[in-house]
């Protein structure tokens, strides 16, 4: 269209003289050399992220190949794999196993709790309800992380609402029974693994709902109808149609829940037993223990696990669901 309009003008003016002024000339230069503009646009963010962020990450990785002198407590700047070998010592390896196990359980539980919410929001909620569901997931997602943990400290406290609730239902024996279980139990829910697990599920649940819902939005309703027309029970439809189609979304959500649980050190510190998770180990090693190489080696563990996880997720097609 513009080309047609231009032919009516005098052709001589179609090539305009250069613009005057500093900004005019600058603008012309950018037009003639788009690469220069691109370069100028990319330089500040790349400098920031590339130097500050990636630089720091590499510095950290480098430190994991140093070791700490047992006698002086100073860092010995020689290349060694001894620090990584320390990760395999029983105490440290326990920490890794415990964290990965917790991350897996949290992921599984969030997937189970998230699915009905995501499915209802994707398939049945319309108009006002759709907005309500959206905000209903978004507000908890964005509300303060510490406030959420604090709320659970209130809930799980021995004198808190959950104990009161069990007492009202005359189920105190059940609560006490669960708390007296070895390993997962404890003095009260707020100092047990069950508490830690509940808070993890609560805090990361929205990250699972959103991608699952995104995947379910794309499942057409007539597929479900076709399945039931062909005689499948609801259970069969779920197993053979709905679940496989939702899986990429669930895997995408699990990236968040898994990674966030692996690296968190505040939740198990505030609600949980005194047994450490990876994040707490990193924090303790670099802080009070002053063993930065071991802290660095510990923080490589979640990076490696997540790299493997992401690679597997990519094969599942999870990134298309994000």
């Amino acid at each position, binding site marked *: 269209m513009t080309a047609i309009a231009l032919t009516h003008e005098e052709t001589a003016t179609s090539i305009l003289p250069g613009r005057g002024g500093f900004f005019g000339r600058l603008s012309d230069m950018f037009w003639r050399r*788009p690469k220069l503009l691109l370069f100028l646009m990319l330089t500040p963010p790349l400098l920031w*992220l590339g130097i500050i*962020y990636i630089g720091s990450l590499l510095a950290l990785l480098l430190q994991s190949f140093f070791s700490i002198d047992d006698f002086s407590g100073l860092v010995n700047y020689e290349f060694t794999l001894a620090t990584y070998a320390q990760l395999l010592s029983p105490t440290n390896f326990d920490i890794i196993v415990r964290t990965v196990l917790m991350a897996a359980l949290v992921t599984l539980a969030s997937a189970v709790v998230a699915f009905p919410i995501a499915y*209802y929001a994707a398939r049945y909620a319309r108009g006002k309800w759709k907005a309500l569901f959206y905000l209903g997931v978004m507000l*908890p997602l964005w509300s303060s992380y510490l406030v959420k943990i604090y709320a659970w400290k209130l809930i799980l406290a021995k004198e808190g609402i959950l104990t009161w609730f069990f007492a009202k239902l005359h189920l105190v024996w059940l609560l006490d029974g669960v708390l007296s279980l070895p390993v997962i139990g404890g003095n009260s829910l707020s100092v047990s693994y069950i508490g830690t697990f509940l808070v993890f599920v609560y805090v990361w649940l929205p990250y699972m709902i959103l991608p699952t819902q995104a995947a379910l939005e794309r499942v057409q309703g007539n597929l479900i109808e076709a399945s039931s027309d062909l005689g499948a029970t609801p259970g069969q439809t779920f197993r053979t149609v709905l679940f496989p189609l939702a899986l990429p979304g669930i895997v995408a959500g699990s990236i968040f829940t898994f990674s966030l649980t692996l690296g968190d050190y505040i939740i198990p510190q505030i609600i949980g037993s005194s047994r450490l998770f990876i994040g707490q180990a990193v924090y303790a090693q670099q802080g009070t223990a002053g063993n930065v190489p071991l802290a*660095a080696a510990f923080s490589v563990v979640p990076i490696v696990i997540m790299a493997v996880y992401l690679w597997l997720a990519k094969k599942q097609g999870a990134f298309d669901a994000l």
Partner: protein
Amino acid sequence: MRSDRGQRAPIALKIAAAGGLLFLHLPILLIFVYAFTTEEKSYQWPPPGLTLQWFGIAWNRPDVWAALGLSVQVACIATAIALVLGTLCAAAVSQTKFFGREAISLLVILPIALPGIITGIALRSAFSLFDIPFSVWTIVLGHATFCVVVVYNNAVARFRRTQGSLIEASMDLGADGFQTFRHVILPNIGTALLAGGMLAFALSFDEVIVTTFTGGQQSTLPIWMLEELIRPRQRPVTNVVAMVVVLVTFLPILAAYYLTRDGDQVAGAGK
């Protein structure tokens, strides 16, 4: 017309979905009750009585105000930096094609994809390597790094919807690059940037993990809360602060939602 319109949800699904949403919201509502309790020493439920006195006491606490001031200051600077860097990056990635485009998207997302503790400890060890003393600026440095991604996500989504022909038309009509940016591009991406900026602000305002590593003696509001959580000194004041934080963070989220709800991608979906 979709064929599934008239269908009703199975009752079990309704219960499960409603239960899930309640699970997400009841704990936050509980904070609101605790802010009024007369009980000081424990987390007793039900509250023995209700009072408004803790609001006055919290109002007169200088440490709360200092922490709040620092949080706002850090969040403002970090958001400003993130807005500039995120927009530049989004413009470059969405308007042009070049080698390594995918790598740049990955680079932007990395600070939020990796656990916060890794970002934190990496920055801390870098600071100690170069003998940089902890200050407001070291906190800002950490925050801006992961705030870039939310601005970037919002801006990229909007750039994708903004048609390139608009920019060409502006150029054809004689506007130079800067005029085009001011009169065509900026009005188009304005609300997306506003939404991204608000989300970045909320993200920075709430951040605690990276801040524990990059902050020295100063405490932001989340750091103040964390200390109260580990060693409670005055529980009622913490209750009040927690409630105020919930209310304050809800506003930018609601605003960001209304600014971008007509778009194909709504703000905050990929925190």
